[in-house]
């Protein structure tokens, strides 16, 4: 019985010191940077010169073991015209909107197999307010300035590089 009490005393001593060792200075935060791809599949618009596609990108992987987003910014957007496009390139205007935030709206040239990286200005990068259920709504609008699209089924990959602070 005495031995048991001694052990209990040691355990309590451990507890006092170790629990004091466990104080955290608020929630621990992590910055996480990762890339998320949304494939925009444009179908049946060969005779048109513009398209609009709406989708949603799940960015929940950024949380990993964390619970909430504290900050979230899209640092860059990469556009890739995939090999399924029958032509070689598309010239025109691209507008990419996340929620109500216009990431960019500018003239671009997409070349099959190539990548076009667009840096998102700091004043348009904050997407924290549009994250819902760990996903963001994405709208991609393209308008060709070189005539009709000329392809009934092709894909543009839109790759978002997101920098988030989570806790």
């Amino acid at each position: 019985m005495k031995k048991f009490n001694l052990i209990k005393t040691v355990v309590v001593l451990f507890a006092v010191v170790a629990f004091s060792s466990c104080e955290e200075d608020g929630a621990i935060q992590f910055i996480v940077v990762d890339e998320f791809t949304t494939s925009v599949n444009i179908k049946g618009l060969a005779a048109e010169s513009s398209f609009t596609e709406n989708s949603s990108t799940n960015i929940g992987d950024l949380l990993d073991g964390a619970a909430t987003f504290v900050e979230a910014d899209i640092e860059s957007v990469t556009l890739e015209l995939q090999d399924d496009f029958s032509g070689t390139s598309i010239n025109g205007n691209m507008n990419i909107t996340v929620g109500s935030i216009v990431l960019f709206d500018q003239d671009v040239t997409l070349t099959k197999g190539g990548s076009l990286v667009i840096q998102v200005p700091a004043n348009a990068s904050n997407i924290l307010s549009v994250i819902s259920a760990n996903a963001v709504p994405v709208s991609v609008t393209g308008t060709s300035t070189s005539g009709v699209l000329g392809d009934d089924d092709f894909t543009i990959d839109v790759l978002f590089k997101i920098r988030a602070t989570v806790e």
Partner: protein
Amino acid sequence: MKKITTIVFVLCSMVSFAQIDLESILEGGVGDAQTFLRGYIQPAPTGFGYGVNGGWYTTAKTHKFLGFDIAVIANASMVPSSSETFTFNEADYTNIQLDGGTGTSSAELPTLFGSQKLADRPLLEFSDSDGNSISSSTLPGAGLEQAIGFNAVPSAMVQIGLGLWKNTDLKVRFIPKQSAPEYEFSAFGIGIQHDLKQWIPFVKRLPFDVSALVAWNDVKSKAFLDVENEPNQALEFNTKTFLFQILASKKLSILTLYGGIGTSSFNSDVNVLGTYTTSQDVDYIDPISLNYTGSSLRANAGFSLKVIGINLSADYTVQEFNTVSVTAGFSFR
């Protein structure tokens, strides 16, 4: 109580190890994980190794024949500021690099006893064999210094001393194996303290005590990290320590002043056991095995108060990780 002991043993085995997302570290492969964790947790086994060597004595005077003492000992090894960070050299890693690094860059990252502040934790880029990568802030420290003003590695022991022949004390530390679903723990230590003054002509008449102490500890612990879902995942932490010390003390009524000089050393193994699966569905079995050794000259000074057999003491040891030890116990003869 069961929950408390579980948390306590996990923490004492490897303070706050639970906050490490091992699967994430393993994304960089076992080699990288091993290299990273070696630096990250280094202060914990080092502090524990030096700390658990504290409290072996509270006087240089040995017991009379069959005199004895029982004491509960608590130690706190102060983590020096130099151990709050470790150097991350990109050249030492295959799949983990500094975000924006050059391949030969280096940076100071927090250890387990380092900062939690985001600004003190650079981004690390983890890459897999397919060329995919993700960047994340490096692991935080436990945040002790920000929370309570200092960093310390705790340890505790129960010790019994028994007077034998020729002014020699046998000291035994013993905690039988404690088993629960969440942890296993046991400790054993043995020491011999021998009065030196009796062998030195003239010195033996001087009004203070001088003795020598050799002592050895063996502490074994295992904390199960996820009992319900991954019962084979465990953190094993075993430490052996050795101490040699020359002691002197002077009794003044109920007060005894004591001190000593000598050496302290430890040999610790930290093993991560079980099967871990990364996001790339790569399984690693018993992925981490680390060994830490260290030795240091040590000098300490302290005092004890003895009133009707009750003995209270406190001392401070100067060594690689300076240590505060306090004891409370009972002493007879």
